């Protein structure tokens, strides 16, 4: 499991994860997280970030995936 850290930054770009439900397969608003090795920038949309967390591949300290309607 990789520990990633949210940058809190909003930028325009393409999600580098692109799961089936990705919302940034073409350029649009995304965020970035820092992950290994070192502090590598990973551009990601919220859907893909949370999918990575749900699958147990990424860990974000303090984050919880809460149910929504």
């Amino acid at each position, binding site marked *: 499991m990789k520990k990633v850290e*949210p940058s809190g930054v*909003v930028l325009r770009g393409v999600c580098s994860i692109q799961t089936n439900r990705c*919302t940034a397969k073409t350029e*649009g*608003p995304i965020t970035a997280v820092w992950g290994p090795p070192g502090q590598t920038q990973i551009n990601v*949309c*919220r859907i893909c970030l949370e999918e990575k967390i749900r699958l147990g591949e990424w860990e974000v300290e303090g*984050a919880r*995936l809460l149910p*929504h309607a």
Partner: protein
Amino acid sequence: MMLAAGRNQTGLTEQQIEYCVEAWTVLCADRQIALDISEARQNFSRTRFSEDQNKVFLGVDAFPGEGVDANSRMSTLACLAHELAHAERFQLGYRRPTDLPDVLLDEAETSLRAVFTSLLKKEKP
């Protein structure tokens, strides 16, 4: 709703509004929750979720101001995450109380929901 004291009270620029729209897009992901920017240029406007209209109004207090307390310094992304949490709770069936102390409890529960948002950068002590 944000506690305004110490947060920005000046009408937002187009650049600031554009940033908020993009931040909202990232936060909402695949959820359709409207962000109304019609009041964002007006001084002293308040960021808030409207249950009646089921949308969030962007106000000038979405941006931090000169206050040094935690509420005043909270980032724009965190502010919007808080309002999104109100909208999510509304969609889950929670209805906001209007009387004290229940309204404070609702704000606290909403803040707790928002703080778990995966996108938010956690401040290190």
